[in-house]
């Protein structure tokens, strides 16, 4: 099964969903992301959904759950890049994405997340970083 890649961008994690996910793939992303937050100590997660042509209730719930899981792991989540037609459809469908913060662009989303702290600049969690990252 294909997995959605999770990139470490400084003190943040970045996920860009570019494919039409089936349900197990969405659940795998949830698990992978929880694991990476815990591993890296990331304080912020950016999820770029500009590649998604629609959001149904399953994907909507997955996004809400990711935000909830991240919060419990002391990280904030911002979902960015929602297409206008997707927003219209979501509202008609009756999905409210509880607990999910959204921003129009990656830049605005990054501004909503916590800045790097001094100890993160020292990279004290780099040892936990997987070797493939560098």
């Amino acid at each position, binding site marked *: 099964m294909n997995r959605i890649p999770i990139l470490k961008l400084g003190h943040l994690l970045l996920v860009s969903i570019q494919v039409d996910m089936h349900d197990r793939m969405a659940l795998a992303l949830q698990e992978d992301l929880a694991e990476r937050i815990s591993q890296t100590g990331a304080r912020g997660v950016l999820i770029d959904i500009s590649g998604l042509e629609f959001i149904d209730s*399953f994907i909507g719930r997955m996004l809400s759950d990711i935000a909830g899981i991240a919060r419990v792991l002391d990280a904030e989540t911002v979902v960015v890049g929602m297409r206008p037609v997707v927003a219209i459809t979501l509202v008609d*469908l009756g*999905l409210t994405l509880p607990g999910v913060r959204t921003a129009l662009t990656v830049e605005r989303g990054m501004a909503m997340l916590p800045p790097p702290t001094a100890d993160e600049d020292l990279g004290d969690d780099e040892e936990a970083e997987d070797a493939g990252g560098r």
Partner: protein
Amino acid sequence: MRRRRTLAADEGLPLRNDEDVVRARHRVRELAQHAGLRLVDQTKFVTAVSELARNTIIHGGGGRLHAGLLQDGARQGVYARFEDDGPGIPDIQMALTDGFSTGTGLGLGFGGARRLVNEFEAKPNPTGGTIVRVATWR
């Protein structure tokens, strides 16, 4: 009463697992584009189909999707018909109520899907299970 024609009837797409839901989305996206639906209506239709296809699998125990084009004079549209193998829905009106769910709490049930399409019909299948049919016009 205008006469409607149903075009491009197909052999149907099985709905058994979550990859079939993805196939269903792609199939109706193509049809919706072919029917000339506006992007927002395409998106709504595909989203409704995604919800209903998942319903068919989770609550209906699997089934089939038949989808095709509609023609009404110069007007074109697209339809999708879901036939499940399940026990049938005891109270279809109740199932259309927002927030109603029999299962895992996944999905928004029929209510959400109904708001995304022009036509929505749910009825018992004479051979068992439920038939749900949706359509959207250009």
